[in-house]
């Protein structure tokens, strides 16, 4: 019975609910903009990672390598785009 129980998925579900609750705190508690946006960004990315690994089964097939390299490459491109844009528009304009 124990082998059949999807413990990983249940725990993942609980954890994603907690992340949602933490994100909601930003609305209900009175905190500074920086603190709020930090919490939102953190919970959002952890949530996305969780969904990808636990519920979309990213690491469970033999394509694991290809899937994760794609994800990492995507993150790299996104970060370069964001920080490059910040460099152009804010830090060095």
């Amino acid at each position, binding site marked *: 019975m124990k082998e059949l129980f999807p413990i990983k998925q249940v725990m993942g579900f609980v954890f994603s609910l907690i992340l949602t609750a933490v994100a909601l705190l930003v609305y209900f508690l009175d905190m500074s903009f920086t603190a709020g946006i930090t919490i939102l960004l953190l919970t959002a990315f952890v949530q996305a990672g969780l969904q990808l690994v636990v519920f979309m089964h990213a690491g469970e097939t033999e394509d694991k390598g290809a899937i994760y390299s794609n994800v990492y490459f995507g993150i790299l491109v996104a970060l370069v785009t964001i920080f490059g844009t910040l460099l152009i*528009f804010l830090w*060095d*304009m």
Partner: protein
Amino acid sequence: MDFFNRFAIPHPSFLIYASMVAIGLTGIAVILGITYFKKWGYLWREWLTTVDHKRIGIMYLISALLMLFRGGVDAIMLRAQLAIPDNKFLESQHYNEVFTTHGVVMILFMAMPFIMFFFNFVVPLQIGARDVAFPRLNAISFWLFFMGAMLFNISFVIGGSPDAGWTSYFPLAGNDFSTSVGSNYYMIAIQIAGIGTLMTGINFITTIFKMRAPGMKLMQMPMFTWSALISNLIIVFAFPVLTVLLAMGTMDRLFDTKFFTIGDGGSDMLWANLFWVWGHPEVYILILPAFGLFSEIISTFARRNLYGYKSMVASMVVISAFSFFVWAHHFFTMGQGALANSFFSITTMAIAVPTGVKIFNWLFTLWKGKIEFTTPMLYAMHFLPLFTLGGVTGVMLAMSAADYQYHNTMFLVAHFHNVIIPGVVYAMLAGLTYYWPKMFGFMLNERIGKWTVWLMSTGFILAFIPMYITGLDGQARRMYTYSEATGFAPLNMVAFIGAGIMAISFALLVYNIYYSVRYSPRNIGNDPWNARTLEWATHTPVPEYNFAVMPQVKSTEAFWDAKKHGHEIFKGKIEKIHMPNSSGLPFIMSCIFFVFGFSMIFSIWPLAIISLLGILGCLVYRSFEKDHGHYIPVEEIEDTETKLRGAK
């Protein structure tokens, strides 16, 4: 009557009215022709509903050649206007519309479908697959592209062309400065075609990862397939930016949002920024498959395996990553400081390194090869020096300080044509000549083909080298005329003559197709070029199922090994083959997309909502549709195989 006023063209001219008549007459002629020869059923069964990657590829090819003609006519008009000073041939507004159309058509509706043609036709054959991973999705990709292209192409006769340049920078492209529906066409037509391209990207990555022939490891894929993989990866990461960008632009124009406005918290510069976040990877999406084709062609006709396979792959991977790090070099003069410009300057120059690696690899492949100057090879030999010249001027432009001098001049125009024409266009035409026998069972005439190449290069050099000089002298791009006192006149006349020679070269290509259809011998076998990769191991014409028996692969050049070293590609016996069913849904849904796009462009909301519901209806229908494909029985395969071997 008020309702119909919106479809009138804001800046009419004789040329546009003449085009209207020509489009009308051609349309009637095509419809009458198909009816007269009773081909509607054939057209529907064999082409409009097909999911076969080879036929979809051929439809991409036809669209690309038509668009090459359209973009080419635009180019001739531009050069004719600039040929003499103070020319009155095109007014400034008309000139703006023509260069905008020329840019969009050539990049998005000529070069893109041309590489899609090669992806579709070549990749499944090269990796020994029977179709792409998602054949139905592939058909949707094509029809969305096609409808997007057609939507863009009717703009100049219904409602007015876009006129803000192919980059469509805000605030010029905003409602304040572009009052006609032209820029709506830009936003929405490219959006529809772009969705199709994004799907192609996903489709081909999956195909290449999951559907390779037994034994073919990643590092044993032919070089064109590698370039296709990398190019599609860039598509998947770059095109979402375009989708978002165009959606924001559409909202600015149709719903008065303020993303790219000057006031109200908008930033017009954000358009330029995001446009090039997509736009720079886009040029690598175009050039990498071109590199792949040249790798195949050079190795085939130097009769050697490709030098430095691993470094070829590595350089493409590096290029794919770096293509995302350089976008700001398109707007060094926008106002950011020296630090930002230096960063993007250095990353841009760094890209020249992996590109240089590829050039040297091709040279080393030629070294001690038994070179055979066929038409595709001749294109490759013209590509190497001309493209290198374009690359070197690219490095000049990459120096941000010097770029303040070159920016927005004809020097830049000369540079990007110098990489795109010898790079992409030569590769496309070389590949077309190379794969023509595989598609249609006869070769294009070699003598006319070589004339085409030489004329193309002569025309190219005459047309674009003068622009480097006038650009350095200060001739700005996108200026519709200039005075005699500037002294630009003689070189612009030379450029016009060059453009004319390129037009003759294109005409010669068309004549070559006609000539070869009539006179070219049909008994050329499956492997007329003595080539090295799997696509030449199957029959010509390629049967629906590509390979009767799945090929076995042990090296990068399975077919060459089979010919020279007794490697057995087709082991095992024929079994029944599972193939996807044809479907009319992709075509129908894309037609509804066309109506949706059209009604959005003219803000006809009821029709937009109805067609959107129609699109959703198609999606729902597809979700509940049961389509398990069909099997081709063994007897039928054996019959086809016997027939294709020539034993009737």
